[in-house]
């Protein structure tokens, strides 16, 4: 036991010393808005350290082993010797998007300029925007994340220098989705810290698609934080496609704060990757706001995917709806923990949650834990979780119509995922994800783009 504790301390010390040894490099080129939070954050991190099984919120996912590995840390933007615009082609034919590239957590310097953006819309790298337009950043950055008791969020705040930034002013509706391609690319194992900030002004609308990819086969560890502010009457869609190599591990924390009458839809599809932990915190902080929270994962080999949601109903008359689905093959492990917290006086809350899982082998494993904390009396809340196998009766029915067993299984697994896919509100993206999921289930998916940069 003492040995174990000593090991924990050593691990945490490694990251705190890394911080103090590189404090100057971290602060260099960064806005004071980022720099003033760093030291507070590293102290916050020191208190709990890298979560292991002892941390109740991480009981199904021990992060320590992946943090024990040696990584290269990058404290300044590294020039990319090739033009990623030429190399990267997302082959979603009808998906007309504004494309933005990030490399190892850094905003790519040679991103094509986004022309045609409506007046006042700002899309760029967090580092640059924080330096050039601090007024767009200072009222938002860390306003949600600082309230978190998650040491991984604090670690991000201590180390973060760059990431994706987006600001859409009041009353602006951005028709075309913004597609943010997060590329991991390195010869050696690297550790990335990406910090994203998205702000939807009053009565504005936008859709963002995050695509997480690896361009090289190396080991990666990303510790990412995204803060999203959805002002009153705004409508925001945030889709994430996680498709990295199986040595790429990531911890992703997303915070959403919703004001009155706002509408949020977030949906995450996890295809390939190593250990992935997704934390989603939504605060319904204005009456009549609504959040749809969807997730699906398809895992095999030794993949480990843990989705952790926390929906806070802070004001009355808000609604939330969560559906998470997982298909687990081979030795993969999945987890879902979903918390709904209805605070005092958040009357007329309607909050629903469901988690359905299909295990394809005896060695696949799923942990699911719903948690409802209700401090108001006039609310409608429900949760449900199932862990099952492929329906043998349905399988036989399909086979009696001449469809072979493998195709019948695929049909059933696709149908299982369909409930989540059909909620995607961008049609070409919905069709594309449908296709990606089908390929993933067939075992034919390696990459979801025609990028040949390996």
């Amino acid at each position, binding site marked *: 036991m003492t040995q174990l504790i000593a090991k924990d301390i050593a691990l945490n010390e490694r990251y705190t010393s890394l911080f103090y040894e590189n404090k100057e490099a971290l602060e260099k080129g960064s806005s004071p808005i980022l720099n003033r939070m760093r030291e507070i954050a590293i102290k916050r991190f020191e208190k709990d350290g890298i979560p292991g099984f002892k941390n109740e919120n991480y009981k199904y996912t021990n992060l320590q082993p992946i943090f024990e590995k040696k990584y290269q840390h990058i404290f300044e933007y590294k020039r990319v010797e090739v033009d990623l615009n030429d190399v990267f082609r997302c082959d979603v034919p009808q998906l007309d998007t504004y494309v933005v590239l990030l490399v190892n957590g850094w905003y790519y310097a040679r991103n094509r300029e986004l022309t045609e953006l409506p007046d006042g819309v700002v899309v760029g790298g967090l580092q640059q925007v924080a330096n050039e337009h601090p007024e767009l950043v200072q009222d938002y950055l860390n306003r949600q994340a600082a309230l978190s008791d998650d040491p991984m969020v604090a670690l991000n705040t201590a180390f973060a220098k760059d990431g994706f930034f987006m600001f859409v002013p009041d009353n602006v509706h951005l028709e075309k989705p913004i597609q943010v391609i997060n590329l991991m690319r390195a010869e050696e194992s690297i550790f990335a810290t990406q910090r994203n900030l998205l702000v939807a002004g009053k009565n504005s609308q936008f859709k963002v698609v995050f695509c997480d990819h690896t361009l090289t086969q190396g080991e990666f560890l990303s510790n990412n934080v995204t803060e999203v502010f959805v002002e009153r009457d705004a409508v925001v869609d945030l889709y994430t496609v996680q498709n990295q190599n199986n040595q790429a591990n990531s911890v992703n924390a997303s915070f959403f704060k919703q004001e009155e009458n706002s509408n949020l839809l977030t949906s995450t599809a996890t295809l390939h990757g190593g250990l992935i932990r997704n934390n989603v915190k939504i605060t319904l902080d204005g009456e009549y706001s609504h959040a749809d929270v969807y997730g699906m994962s398809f895992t095999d080999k030794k993949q480990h995917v843990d989705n952790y949601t926390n929906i806070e109903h802070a004001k009355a008359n808000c609604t939330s709806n969560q559906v998470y689905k997982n298909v687990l093959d081979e030795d993969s492990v999945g987890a879902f923990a979903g918390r709904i917290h209805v605070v005092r006086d958040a009357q007329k809350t309607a909050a629903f949650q469901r988690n359905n899982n299909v295990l394809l082998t005896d060695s696949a494993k799923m942990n699911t834990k719903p948690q409802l904390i209700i401090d108001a009396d006039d609310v409608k809340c429900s949760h449900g979780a199932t862990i099952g196998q492929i329906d043998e009766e349905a399988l036989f029915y399909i086979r*009696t*119509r001449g469809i072979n*067993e493998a195709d019948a299984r695929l049909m059933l697994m*696709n*149908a*299982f995922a369909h409930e989540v896919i059909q909620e995607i509100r961008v049609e070409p993206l919905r069709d594309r994800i449908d296709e990606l999921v089908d390929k993933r289930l067939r075992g034919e998916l390696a990459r979801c783009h025609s990028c040949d940069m390996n």
Partner: protein
Amino acid sequence: MLTIKNLKASVEDKEILRGLNLDVKAGEVHAIMGPNGSGKSTLGNVLSGKEGYDDLDGEVEFLGEDLFELAAEDRAKKGLFLGFQYPVEIPGVPMVNFLKASVNEHRKFKGLEPLSASEFLKLMREKKEMLHLDSQLTNRSVNEGFSGGEKKKNEIFQMAMLEPKLAILDETDSGLDIDALKIVADGVNALKNPERSTIVITHYQRLLEYIVPDFVHVLYQGQIVKSGGKELALELEEKGYDWIKKETV
């Protein structure tokens, strides 16, 4: 068409089929009747290739081939169709996609090109008209939320689309009102031709007023204990199954 010799099957040490013999020739309609638990549905399932039966024994020849050598999907493609007593609901699989995949698998097996989307829709329209079906069913997920009658009509519709050589209809009449029963029976009759055989599994004689069988068999305790013409069904309706049970003892 189909020759069954001494067919046996068990479930968890319980013998369900205990040496069943049946011979069905092309163009014939056979009715298999019997009390609950006599093995009627097991017969349909075993012939269609459902797994999970123990001590499967006997010989079943379908169009000159050993049926036991074929997987469920291959039996279907060779022309065997099972109309389910309880059609399975499959949420998330649109009926249209399901049927299209199914029809094209059958075509592939016959060495034909797959139907294009428009050809397929045309075929669907024709079959719906033939069966006097409303068009709503195909817009939904397979059997999902269908009423009992809709599910059975959907079975007949699938049969019409796949044009099997041998259709086994398992209690297709159960839970149907008289209008639905007529639609189902008309469908079966419309598909009748000298090349095509039907086995109607039923508990009641009612369906046989609409689908007139050439032969009626009584299944009891896993064996066919009595065979006759269509008048046997009437006799059963009148006297019930107790008469057969006594005779067998």
